[in-house]
């Protein structure tokens, strides 16, 4: 899976590959607002460090959006989108 550099990624392009399938563009479009919220929260997490309640919020949104289960401890030490995408990918 190619994971673009986080500074260059427009939100729509952030899409982990589900096995050999990619999210339908229409799915991404309808989910765009939610994904934008998630990525904004994730960006805050990486850049300024958000508190634990916000981290739990991020975790829930990621799990709900990508329909995966991410144990809390998987988020510890995650400091960039690439690592985060890898964590999600490993659960698809």
């Amino acid at each position: 899976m190619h994971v673009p550099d986080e500074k260059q990624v427009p939100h729509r392009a952030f899409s982990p590959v589900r096995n050999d399938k990619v999210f339908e563009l229409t799915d991404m479009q309808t989910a765009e607002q939610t994904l934008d919220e998630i990525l904004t929260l994730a960006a805050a997490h990486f850049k300024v460090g958000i508190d634990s309640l916000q981290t739990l919020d991020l975790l829930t949104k990621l799990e709900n959006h990508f329909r995966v289960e991410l144990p809390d401890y998987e988020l510890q030490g995650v400091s960039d989108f690439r690592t985060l995408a890898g964590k999600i990918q490993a659960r698809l």
Partner: protein
Amino acid sequence: MHGGKAASTGQCAVSERAMSWSIRDGVIELALHRAPCNELGSLSLEDLEKFATALQIMEAEAHALIIYSELKTGFCAGADLRELYQRSQAMEKAEAARGVRDFLERIHRVLNLIDATPLTTIAAVHGVTFGGGFELALACDLIVADKMARFCFPELRLGLIPGFGGIPRLKRDLGNAVVRDLLLTGRSFNATKAQQVGLVSQVVGEGEALRAARATAMQLGKFDRATAAEAKKVIKPIPLDELRREIDVFCELFARPAVRDGLKKFVESTDAQPYLP
């Protein structure tokens, strides 16, 4: 603010420091509102005890009880660890141990009362539902969760086990493998997972848990109260022996230095993420 009033329509409202309650159309609502996240310390316990006394009177006029939080942060983050640490530090070891046991026995009395009430009880939860907050929800018959709710027993991180009745109630409701997962990993489950394992009755949209709980309570009002109460007694035994054993184990563990160290670390932490395992 303290006080209560009874209206001619049968509505009654009482507001205490950490929570308030009301009864309307046969539904009692207990609203938690102690910032930052309804941590259960001595103040909350006092209010819960007042509520428990009022509940025994209100029960005659009601068929359902809904417990929810008015705070955006979540349902309840659990025991007030800061208060626990500060009080235990200010006491001799033996006195602190007696204080902890006393607190546990008092909160068990309240939760056992909620667990055993003839009313059908619904916990309408959102956000953080951790530790003692999770235990409060488990004392209810049904849990309605919004999609942002998370459930967790983080006590192992402090060298403790859940002490408010969580283990016996979790065992009552779920398969042992799931109980082991929650207790031994200290990880949190989202609402979807919680529903999949049979913990949560309904998962609803963000902010919709109370509305869904009220709709469910309205439905419950259609049934004969005495029959529902008898059915509940059959379906839902109260595991009193295990609950007493949990208090004993908690108190034994609390005496260990590792627990004091864990509490100190939590209280003094500047970590932005103390709630993560």
